[in-house]
């Protein structure tokens, strides 16, 4: 066979392999989405958002308490993790070679790899045991601990992508180092940092394990952060494990909502980046 003929065949095979790999990678995602939407969307109705769970056997009811609970938990986690994570990331980007920075970086990577159930147990020991009560705060601490390393590393990486030229320009105009960081470097990296925060939020929104021993669950309406609180993930877990068809349908609807929350956060992140980048990029 001619050289060019063989080249074309090799190219076609390589392309086919790539296509297969892409399909294999995307198939699970497509199936999850398809199944969750198929099962969840049909179980979803207005009452799901506005009503409280009903006792077994009574039809209807919703997850209003769990939806609000999840939002509260996310809010608590972000309040703790975003300031700590961002400031930490700034430190790592500004003093990349200090010994302290390498310790912090290593710690963040280790924390990022710790199974979420372990983080849950830790928060249980730290927050629940001393006061002998499950609470939304404990759940927020657990989720915040999962969020911190992601925020730290994204902030650091994005700050380091900011060209040195910008820093030099600011310093050459008589800016102090801190001024250059907060008025030029951080704003230049902000779209990326925000995306990182949203992605981290989306990730913790779907956590179940760390909430099992911290926020626990709550069948009633509660917004008190010192009390146990319901969350979508734990509610889905509980309902899916039950033997009742009604609850199964509710679990599907909850799963659907979780997927939608993640999707919405990702879309917001993308839109925010696009909006901010219009100013930033050539």
């Amino acid at each position, binding site marked *: 066979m001619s050289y060019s003929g063989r080249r074309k065949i090799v190219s076609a095979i390589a392309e086919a392999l790539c296509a297969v790999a892409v399909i294999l990678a995307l198939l699970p995602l497509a199936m999850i989405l398809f199944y969750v939407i198929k099962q969840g969307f049909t179980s979803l109705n207005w009452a799901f958002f506005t009503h409280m769970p009903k006792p077994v056997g009574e039809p209807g009811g919703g997850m209003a308490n769990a939806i609000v609970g999840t939002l509260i938990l996310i809010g608590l986690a972000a309040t703790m993790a975003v300031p700590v994570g961002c400031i930490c990331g700034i430190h790592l980007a500004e003093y990349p070679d200090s010994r302290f920075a390498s310790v912090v970086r290593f710690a963040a990577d280790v924390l990022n790899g710790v199974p979420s159930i372990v983080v849950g147990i830790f928060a249980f020991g730290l927050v629940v045991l001393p006061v002998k009560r499950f609470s939304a705060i404990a759940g927020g601490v657990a989720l915040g601990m999962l969020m911190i390393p992601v925020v730290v590393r994204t902030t650091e990486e994005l700050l380091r992508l900011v060209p040195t030229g910008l820093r030099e320009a600011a*310093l050459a*105009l008589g800016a*102090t180092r801190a001024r250059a960081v907060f008025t030029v470097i951080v704003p*230049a990296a902000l779209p990326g940092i925000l995306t990182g925060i949203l992605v981290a939020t989306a990730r913790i929104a779907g956590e179940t394990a760390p909430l099992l021993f911290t926020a626990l669950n709550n069948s009633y309406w509660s917004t008190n952060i010192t009390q146990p609180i319901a969350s979508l993930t734990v509610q889905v877990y509980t309902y899916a494990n039950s033997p009742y068809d009604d609850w199964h349908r509710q679990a599907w609807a909850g799963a659907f909502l979780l997927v939608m929350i993640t999707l919405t956060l990702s879309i917001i992140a993308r839109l925010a980046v696009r909006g901010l980048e219009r100013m*930033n990029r050539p």
Partner: protein
Amino acid sequence: MMTTIEMERIATPVNREPAESGKGTSKISVQNFDFYYGPAKVLHSINLEIPDRRVTALIGPSGCGKSTFIRSINRMNDIIPNARAKGTITIDGRDIYAAGTDVVALRRRVGMVFQKSNPFPKSIYDNIAYGLRIGGMHNKRELNALVEKSLIRAALWDEVKDRLHEGAFTLSGGQQQRLCIARALAVDPEILLMDEPASALDPIATTKIEELIWDLKVNYTIVIVTHNMQQAARVSDRTAFFMLGRLVEYADTKTIFMNPKEKMTEDYVTGRFG
């Protein structure tokens, strides 16, 4: 084309009266200046006097230390880890490497324009206003006036006056570089350091920058690093030729190009190596 009124504005310094006295006398004096990156010595005992409100060009092959040298004049090299300076550089008689020197204040007196234009990811207006704001100016009317003056002096006003609040990256490469010059001028420095300001620009944009340098030397002491021999010949009054971290020859530009003392200078300016 510029109107007469604008020409007059250009001739007026931003907020400093032009004084004929002192023009051409030594503004920056460099004595036995050595520079090290870690153990590597990159500048060897540089001695030179840079005249007030003249253009001084630094030429030489890549890696000869001219960029390191120009960055020593506003202590920009301070941000490089393990970099170390020895000897003195004085501006108006004061050693800028003396202990206790306020580097921030120094950099406000010694503006810098970089090889790669580096506008902030902000609007055109905010780019110019940046230096003024960090200097404590927040009065909107004062800011507006100085932003306009700086842009006029950098010959950019006519092109951007209707879109001051658009992002700086909407400008062309040449315009971005003039924006960076305007930004440096806004804080009213006495000295302007330019590190190959036109090397990334096309010939037309380069011509504009050169004309600008010509206009600016009425009010500013300008030090420019360039790889372009014609550019050095066109814009500068004095030329310093650097080679392997040493100052080989420093004289009037005409002398360097027409009648250099050193064989090495002659070889370089006539393009025999480089």
